[in-house]
């Protein structure tokens, strides 16, 4: 299977991945009785009014199947998948982009218009829709619109330039806010921790060090579980 075919076959699976979207995300957090359980994973803490709005947005369709496929193909041109953390498809980027287009309607014209521009351009140049063009042809089109004049505000530049900049933002953001993207980034937070300062190798790399007088004032993490008591002057005794 060539690369394009493989993307298309992945796209055919997007319905399934959307269904799995609200599935179990418990992994990645440490279970410990001192720490909270992870709460309701289905509704991520929404109020009834917020849930209602989400359901309304989820029921709407912004892009047709062709447009979703085009977004998927363009996404992987912008940020090609890479082992071991995949790319935009594994990160549900097309679904994310569609949702944001519904959630922030101001984005819609740029997205819809830009997709039309892509096909028009590709048909004119190569006689084929963007999603079915070869990777070389797709790149040729992207190369024309992926740079912009830094001295001119983006909203004063051509639609296709704005479109590409918006798509790049949404693709990179969508990827790096996904499970695979966070793994690729290496972010280690959002889980229970006992912060005890910057590791020595990191201090060395950046050429900074702790002031011993400052450090002496900081929390002794071995005593964090002991109830605080002070003398009358406010000196911590425990």
């Amino acid at each position: 299977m060539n690369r394009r075919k493989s993307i298309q076959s992945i796209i055919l699976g997007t319905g399934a991945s959307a269904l799995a979207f609200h599935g179990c995300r418990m992994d990645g957090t440490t279970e410990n009785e001192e720490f909270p359980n992870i709460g309701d994973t289905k509704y991520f803490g929404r109020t009834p009014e917020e849930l209602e709005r989400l359901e309304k947005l989820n029921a709407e369709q912004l892009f047709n199947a062709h447009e979703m496929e085009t977004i998927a193909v363009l996404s992987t041109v912008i940020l090609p998948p890479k082992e071991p953390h995949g790319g935009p498809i594994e990160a549900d980027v097309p679904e994310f982009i569609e949702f944001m287009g519904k959630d922030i309607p101001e984005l819609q014209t740029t997205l819809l218009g830009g997709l039309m521009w892509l096909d028009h351009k590709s048909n004119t140049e190569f006689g084929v829709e963007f999603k079915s063009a070869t990777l070389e042809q797709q790149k040729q089109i992207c190369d024309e619109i992926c740079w912009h004049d830094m001295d001119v505000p983006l909203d004063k530049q051509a639609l296709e330039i704005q479109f590409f900049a918006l798509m790049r933002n949404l693709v990179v953001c969508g990827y790096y806010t996904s499970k695979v993207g966070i793994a690729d980034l290496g972010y280690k937070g959002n889980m229970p921790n006992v912060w005890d300062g910057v590791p020595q190798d990191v201090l060395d790399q950046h050429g900074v060090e702790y002031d011993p007088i400052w450090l002496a004032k900081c929390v002794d993490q071995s005593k964090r579980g002991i109830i605080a008591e002070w003398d009358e002057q406010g000196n911590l005794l425990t």
Partner: protein
Amino acid sequence: MQIIENSEEYDVIIVGSGAGGGMATKQLADAGFKVAVVEAGPYFDPADPKTMTQLKWPYESPRRGANTDRAFGEWDMSWGDWEVDGEPYTHEEGTSFKWWRSRMLGGRTNHWGRISLRFGPKDFKGKSRDGYGEDWPIGYDDVKPYYDKVDKLIGVFGTNEGLENDPDGFFLPPPKPRLHELFYINGAKKSGIPVIPSRMSMLTKKINKDRGVCFYCGQCSRSCSVYADFSAGSCLIFPAQRNGGQVKIYVNAMVREVTTNEEGKATGVSYINKEDRKEYKLKGKVVVLAASACSSARILLNSKSKQHPNGLGNSSDLVGKYLHDSTGSSAAGFIPGLMNRKTSYNEDGTGGMHVYSPWWGDNSKLDFPRGYHIEVWGGMGQPNYGFGFNANDFNKFFGLKVGGYGDSLRDDVKKYYGSVIGFGGRGEGIARKENYCEIDPTTVDQYGIPVLKFNYKWSDLEKKQAKHMQDTFEELIYNMGGMPLGDKPGKDRDYGLLAPGEIIHEVGTTRMGNDPKTSVTNKFNQLHDVDNVFIVDAGPFVSQADKNCTWTILALSWRASDYIIEQLKQQNI
């Protein structure tokens, strides 16, 4: 439609359940009084898994944390923000004010930054110092014992530094600085700007059996499910109930007015139950307003009667006047020394900052009278909506092309991750009679209650202070070997001075004083006009300091509660 009266009489009715209302609830219930807490929003407990956002991942939401539903992002634990559905507010033309309302038990304490600063001795005597505004009728020594008690009851980390106007306290030990904070410390040193450990109400150490210890997820704005940060529900109201206190909580109850009798004394409150949209009355011997500075002013102004034709407690015509918020101006810089970071460790830390700069300047040598403190942010935070936008914009600092696509974007994102430091200056604005909120007779909310109209303008003094902030931030960024991001706001943009209200430290609408003609409450937060009505939010503040107001709200609410207890016991009210 008949108003439904509850025959039960409470000793005290407390309107609002944030910092001020929570503290009054705790003290008055602990003292054995029968207390009703009336909250305009629903019940909220940070530990409830249904509403919890702590430790959520961006990908659990289809919008990845974007702020379309909640102004500070969808994980922020505030129900209600600059806008609340069906509850508008209006402005005098040509003026601005942004008003944040959290409609939930615990109010805004559920999402705030937990920056917990005492006012210093100078902060209570501003007029004596520079002629602006008014002195408080009390001084630091009056409040100190209560600050001490608040420190011990609620818990705040920090250090005793012996600074004159940033007093020592009873602190838990602070967390160690993060990498960007070490850069900040070094950069500030070059300009002679002091940096000390932050003072924030998260538990870096156990304080009692009921609350957990901070586990460093950096998400205090999401409200801590193990109660390791301060929220009024988890740290004051629930403990008051657990203590066996007689606390009845009315939720979704929007207070319309304080009711009064023929003698003009308060008899209770009337409220709209948001669920059945009917009006109810509660009876109480004492009414404590803690609805937030502006909401309490609104209730007073709407409580008109034969005895109080100008609104309750408003014989001075000062209710709503002297409204003032902290000043705020911000900047950010790209710091090449923070590029190419190792992601080998979790540096979330506590929410917000581990270090800050208290005001260091000498205003007698500056062209503005009051100071500001500097808040610092940065680090390798959780990616959420907006992360990765303009991923390689910083290439321009190296003469490299900006934009493009392909594998290199991954490298760009990682190269620049955690390389930005931001600053927020938070300063003192002057309290002025000309800045106020009043009732807008043309507009009501969906409960039929007349709403507030705001009239607030900054003066040149605040703008000059913001200019000083911007110049300082620029200098700090260069000191750190960095490049400022974005255009430095000049005079045409008031030096980036944020709109009044945006710092969410609004105070002063029912200011305290000894003279009933020039103040609304006395030095015990009691209305001059009606002795059984008290205000324990930030309304009685005579002046904001260059400090956040919550710790002072808590201390003064405790102090006022002690006074109420004494007066009730002596049957004076």
